């Protein structure tokens, strides 16, 4: 059964495959690991399909920065409920490296984390199938925020004086 996920606040069927999941056709969108990319970028660039990469929490996104143009998707992995590095990875990718593609949270992703994840720049979420229907409500957990951030579509009210400098 194809994987479903939450993308841009809608339930969607995932067209992407991880390398570990299937021998994808060269034209199909494929998510490789950061190590695979580092080892042999040319092999992957030879494919015609869109390319995505999954980062482990310990990966330094700066090392991916020169290659960002090759990726339509970056996934950050959350191995467990205590993991928090992906939040920083997401902000750096969006704010420092200006990544515009799909930014996906994968691994231990639950609805109670979605609000913060979205505020850090994630726009797609691999949730357990049972959580999908209810999860979108999490985006409206809070209607305001104290910190400037790159919220995607959350339209939070920011108090004057808390905005980032221009």
């Amino acid at each position, binding site marked *: 059964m194809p994987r479903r996920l939450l993308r841009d606040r809608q339930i969607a069927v995932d067209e992407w495959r991880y390398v570990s999941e299937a021998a994808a056709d060269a034209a199909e969108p494929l998510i490789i690991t950061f190590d695979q990319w580092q080892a042999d970028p040319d092999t992957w660039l030879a494919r015609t399909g869109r390319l995505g990469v999954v980062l482990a929490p310990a990966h330094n996104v700066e090392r991916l920065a020169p290659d960002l143009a090759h990726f339509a998707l970056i996934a950050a992995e959350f191995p467990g409920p205590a993991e*928090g590095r992906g*939040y920083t990875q997401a*902000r750096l990718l969006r704010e420092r490296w200006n990544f515009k593609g799909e930014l996906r949270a994968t691994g231990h992703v639950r609805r109670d984390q979605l609000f913060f994840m979205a505020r850090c720049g994630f726009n797609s979420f691999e949730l357990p199938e049972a959580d999908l229907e209810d999860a979108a409500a999490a985006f409206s957990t*809070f*209607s305001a925020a104290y910190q400037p951030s790159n919220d995607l579509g959350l339209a939070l009210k920011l108090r004057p004086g808390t905005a980032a400098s221009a």
Partner: protein
Amino acid sequence: MYRYDLTDKTLVQERVAQFRDQTQRFLAGRLSEDEFRHLRLRNGLYIQRHAPMLRVAIPYGLLSSAQLRTLARIARRYDRGYGHFTTRQNIQYNWPKLEEVPDILAELAEVEMHAIQTSGNCIRNTTSDHLAGVTPHEIEDPRPWCEIIRQWSSFHPEFTYLPRKFKIAVTGAAQDRAASLVHDVGVHIVRGPNGDLGFEILAGGGLGRTPIIGQVVREFLPREHLLSYLEAILRVYNLEGRRDNLTKARIKILVRSLGIEAFKKRVEAEWELLRETGPRVDDAQIARMRAFFDPPAYRVLPNGEPDAGKETEFRAWYRYNTAAHKVSGYRAVFVSLKKPDMPPGDATDAQMELIAHLADRYSYGEVRVTHTQNLLLADVEQGKCYELWQALKGAGLATPNIGTLTDMICCPGLDFCSLANAGSIDVAKLINERFDDYDYIYDLGELDVKMSGCMNACGHHHVGNIGILGVDKGGEEWYQITIGGAAGADASLGSVIGPSVAKTQVPETIARLLDVYVEQRQPEERFLDTVRRLGVKPFKERVYAAPLAA
């Protein structure tokens, strides 16, 4: 004090709704124990020995009388009629029912309070000097900056899943009453080379299993950059702090393993990239925050001697339980929560209500919680101190022991806490029974005794002049004694005097330590100074020279 605007009110109400939903999903079996644990912890809810424990934030220790009345009502309605004030200026309830916690949070929200991020691996309540704004010789009132940090750190999207908890303390005076050197980050208000206001930033302090004194990361940070600099520190920590071992996950371990210079370099490099794009505290925001902490309309009064000609008991109380005020004719008055027969830091619902009433009557309706687990009425007219004392005395709140041996810091210990190895409250009781002669206690002078029921060090034993740590030895409660610790601007970690002692031997051990001090002290020398001058040896020799009676 700070008053919520619509943004703050909206956020706490939405938090109550969020937690209510999470609790219901847990009770309905739709959230696992482990998943719920991560959520409830970020809302101050622990599952303890007897029942859940709810920790409610008291930002930088400041309460209105209305808030204190709500805390009293919660103690009565949802708990067993008391609350425990902590070293981080919070209050803990030990007996709430899980299913009632959302209702408690809703009652707190009505008086602009919450339990947001009072536990869990996130940025905790920002603490400060209990004499902020009233102490003479202050560079600036730290509370506006505490509130700026409170707001910035609340629901920070990037830093809610840190490797470990993260505590910030802010001080604005030379004397450090907030233990900022044993915080993950210490923020000191300082004047820069041109007289500009800014901050000295320290990082890497902490107690627990591996006590470390914080080190300077930046000597002078211009004030507008406070939040971007904190973001840089937090970001370096979030990415590089250890997550493989809980006992090595605090920022102190990162700072120590990198070395302060390498840590500083990483933070500064990150800050260079953040300083222009990150949050900036502008002048309008600073002015807006400062206005909340404008001094009350003090009366013009001369300084007097309100204790002259009064009974000895009042004079002792006035000397020990009141502190100098920057405005003439006023004193800051401590409400001692260290009555010998009460667990240190505990207050009953009736006491809280009385203190709220006294705050309205004598101190502009505000109460503060001190790091040393007492309360404070900060703005009392000297001429009203006598009647205030009478009212406090009638409620068991005037024990004249602030800053002395029996003003002990003490964690809840084995009686309540599921982490503890040994009792603390009962040891405090034994110490109080042994040392009940106030002439002797006053003769000893300034003395910090701090006690923790386990190495998590909630009672800050490492930085006690005398520290007492509960340890488990084959199922029995034993106590390791340290001396020479200090928590102020000259912070130091205590040294272990020798093998641990049995519970009943703790008072005798302390008595022997104090004997050495009394015999060897020089004029005006505090216990701490004598220990620093002589070292541990003479104290150790005395304690273990003759067998300690059981």
